């Protein structure tokens, strides 16, 4: 729930990433003189960039910094003479970021460079997962032609930094951003809204995809949005058309997500007996909602929250349960085998449901489902129907996504380990050990044979029957539900 709440704040400024609350403490090492020196060099670089590079646009995509600028930065930091070149090199862009926040352009580029470097390094080393390795060359939104609305830039940043996670949260955030875009959009002369708006939206979508691959549910909702745009009557006045589209978006969110969740709540609650022991995995907005509602309505049960690195999302859900008073046990996924014998049923969320009934969800879900099946524990997957995808996936390998390397300067998700002396070192700090490469697939596929029932807003459905559902919906609406 917390990730959704971060959406409504209205600032459209490009966030100064370097100004994150956990800013590096090494900043104090640079003296005033050194900082001034740095500033001069960067102003010069900026002038050079402006002369050579593309003209500036309002609310534009950050561009990759020209090489000389970066080279100068590194040179500037060396005379500063701080020990541990890594620390300072990462320091300089951060300080620069603070200074350059007002200029609003170079902030992301410095950061982007660093991350791009790491990515390039990693890509060079990666022998597996090359088909879905991290970000593209040049960083967020590179190479995308067209104006990108500030709301989308902001959203892209939030996606890339994993500030908004979860299928429902991402979808709702994207749709809300699209509402802003639509309201701000002005149809150019001699063009129709129906045709031009679709073209205007496409680069926005590409930008979001460059931050993180498109979520299935998000894709379905955008496809439906494009359909609604395309059928806007040419006679409709512009503001009316925009209001109509925003209303369609609101209806989609309300019917396919919010109300759907209430219905799923009812169906799932009916399966919870008093005294049940329910196992959950990571964090699913639907599962959280169902269990809290069941407890509030007077059902008494206990929950085993299973969690896994690196995301550790289960902690968020655990906090919500404890707040309401549900007796919980928290364990990491390697402990599931020990507790499964005590469990009455397993509640899981989903990112997407494939047409053969297999479930694409947070990595680790398949493990939990398989173990439950082995122990004859029923596995209930709670999912709205808008997450249905006509694809068939047979394994977790062909389609997946890697968790981004957490940026130690900005991310609070630093993964550390202790050595024998108790010193903390960054596990994912690849600049220290170029031979070490961490790979964190975010998703996995649970075969339909391991799932007992899919709880959707149209009822309890066995996984094999999910494709009938899609066929019906298509006929009713007269359009494709998904690719």
């Amino acid at each position: 729930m917390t990730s959704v709440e971060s959406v409504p704040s209205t600032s459209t400024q490009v966030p100064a990433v370097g100004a994150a609350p956990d800013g590096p403490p090494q900043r104090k090492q640079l003296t005033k003189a050194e900082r001034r020196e740095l500033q001069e060099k960067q102003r010069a670089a900026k002038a050079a960039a402006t002369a050579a590079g593309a003209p500036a646009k309002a609310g534009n995509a950050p561009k990759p910094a020209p090489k000389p600028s970066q080279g100068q930065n590194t040179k500037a930091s060396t005379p500063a003479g701080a020990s541990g070149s890594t620390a300072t090199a990462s320091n300089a862009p951060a300080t620069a970021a603070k200074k350059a926040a007002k200029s609003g352009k170079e902030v992301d580029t410095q950061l982007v460079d660093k991350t791009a470097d790491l990515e390039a390094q990693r890509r060079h080393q990666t022998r597996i997962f090359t088909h879905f390795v991290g970000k593209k060359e040049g960083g967020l939104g590179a190479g995308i032609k067209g104006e990108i609305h500030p709301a989308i830039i902001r959203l892209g940043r939030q996606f890339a930094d994993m500030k908004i996670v979860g299928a429902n949260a991402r979808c709702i955030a994207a749709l809300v951003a699209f509402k802003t875009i639509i309201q701000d959009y002005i149809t150019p002369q001699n063009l129709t809204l129906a045709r031009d708006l679709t073209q205007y939206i496409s680069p926005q979508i590409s930008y979001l995809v460059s931050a993180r691959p498109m979520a299935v549910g998000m894709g379905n909702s955008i496809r439906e949005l494009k359909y609604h745009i395309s059928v806007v009557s040419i006679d409709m006045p512009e503001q009316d058309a925009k209001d109509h589209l925003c209303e369609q978006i609101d209806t989609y969110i309300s019917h396919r997500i919010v109300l759907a969740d209430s219905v799923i709540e009812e169906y799932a609650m009916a399966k919870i007996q008093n005294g049940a022991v329910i196992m959950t995995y990571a964090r699913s907005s639907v599962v959280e909602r169902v269990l809290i509602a069941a407890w509030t309505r007077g059902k008494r049960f206990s929950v085993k929250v299973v969690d896994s690195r690196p995301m550790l999302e289960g902690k968020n859900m655990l906090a919500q349960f404890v707040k309401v008073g549900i007796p919980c046990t928290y364990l990491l996924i390697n402990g599931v085998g020990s507790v499964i014998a005590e469990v009455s049923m397993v509640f899981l969320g989903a990112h997407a449901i494939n047409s053969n009934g297999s479930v694409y969800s947070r990595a680790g879900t398949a493990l939990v489902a398989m173990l439950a099946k082995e122990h004859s524990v029923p596995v209930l997957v709670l999912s709205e129907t808008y997450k249905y995808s006509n694809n068939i996936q047979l394994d977790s390998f062909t389609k997946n996504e890697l968790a981004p390397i957490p940026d130690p300067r900005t991310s609070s998700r630093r993964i550390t380990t202790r050595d024998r002396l108790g010193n903390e070192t960054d596990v994912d700090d690849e600049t220290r050990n170029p031979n070490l490469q961490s790979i964190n697939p975010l998703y996995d596929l649970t075969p339909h044979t391991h799932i007992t029932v899919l709880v959707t807003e149209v009822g309890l459905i066995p996984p094999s029957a999910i494709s009938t559902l899609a066929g019906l919906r298509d006929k009713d609406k007269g359009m494709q539900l998904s690719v």
Partner: protein
Amino acid sequence: MAQPPPLLMLSNDQTDAIKFQKDASKFDVISAYKTFVNDPDISMPVAAMQSLSELIAQTEIATMFELMEAVKDAATKLKRHYSHNSVSLSAGCDVFYQFISSLRDFGQDFEGFKSHIIAAVREYAQNTKQVKDTIADNVDAFIKDDSVILTHGYSRVVVNAFLLSHRKGRRISVYVTETRPRGLGMRTHELLTKAGIPCTIILDSAVAYAMDKVDMIMVGCEAVVESGGIVNAVGSCQMAMIAKAFNKPVHVLAESYKWTRLFPLSQYDLPTHNDHILSFDLVSTPPTSGSNSPLPGTPRRHHPVLRTTDSIPNLLFAAQRHPPLDTTMSTNSMSNVMPVGQAGRNPEVDYTPPEYITLLFTDAGILTPEGISSYLVTMSLRSESS
């Protein structure tokens, strides 16, 4: 007061047997049901539909909303009265309710609406024989000459199918389980031997022993559930599991009014399951740990519920349901049937998951378990959107 509308469902002699109240709220749906279910050709769900339809015929209610409420109340009364055996009955009530909800286009013509329902149900009841014959025709293609078939309990559809194949000249022999405690297998045996089909009753526990001699399993069911599995007399699940182990096909014969929107996650998720079934007697001191509290670390779900001695109603209840057991039995003397108190702790029906079922023969065609669940999903969506 005017005479009640003519009783379209019952024949004259049946009319005399029952006294109906003029006021709909005093309509006794239970006694109506009992009358209808006496007909040997009518199964429980159809009898339920008939009694609900009779309620509509009898009532003087004039609004749609009140009528639906009255039907719902009567259905609940029926279900509650027969709670130990209610799955097929529930199915019948639900099918009826869905049917009348889907008839929306009668507008102001309330009487027309009522007579339409009454006529439809009457036709339905008359057609049950027809439905059974359709199914039997489909089944016949799957029965080879000289087949040995194993069946469980007593199912009108299954017996009908065997008789039809026999009449067509196929030579079949049938094993039927005793199907304790109600001993329904005896009825099957009686009907088949009367028709000249060789039939042997085997012990419920001899199913694995006999499985290698059998070519296929053929059973009826109380209800087909949404997962594609079935609910049938207890013993069906283990028969299906043994058949799977021996690679013998399991065929289920089910009329379409038996399909329900139930989705049991396990045996204990059935509506017929309650805390008393498979419970244990409290022998000595109460337990020290709070085994009923939902704390983490509590031993497994379905842990035995410790009770004090059986309450009187349970004993009477158990006695009603079963054929007369030897009542002179005390717990000390030897007996070859379980005492009444113990008998009450046993289930009447069980759930067979879809993975053990090969094919379902219905009046809508021959379907796999996955096919039935697709069909059910489609049907329920259509009725929701209408």
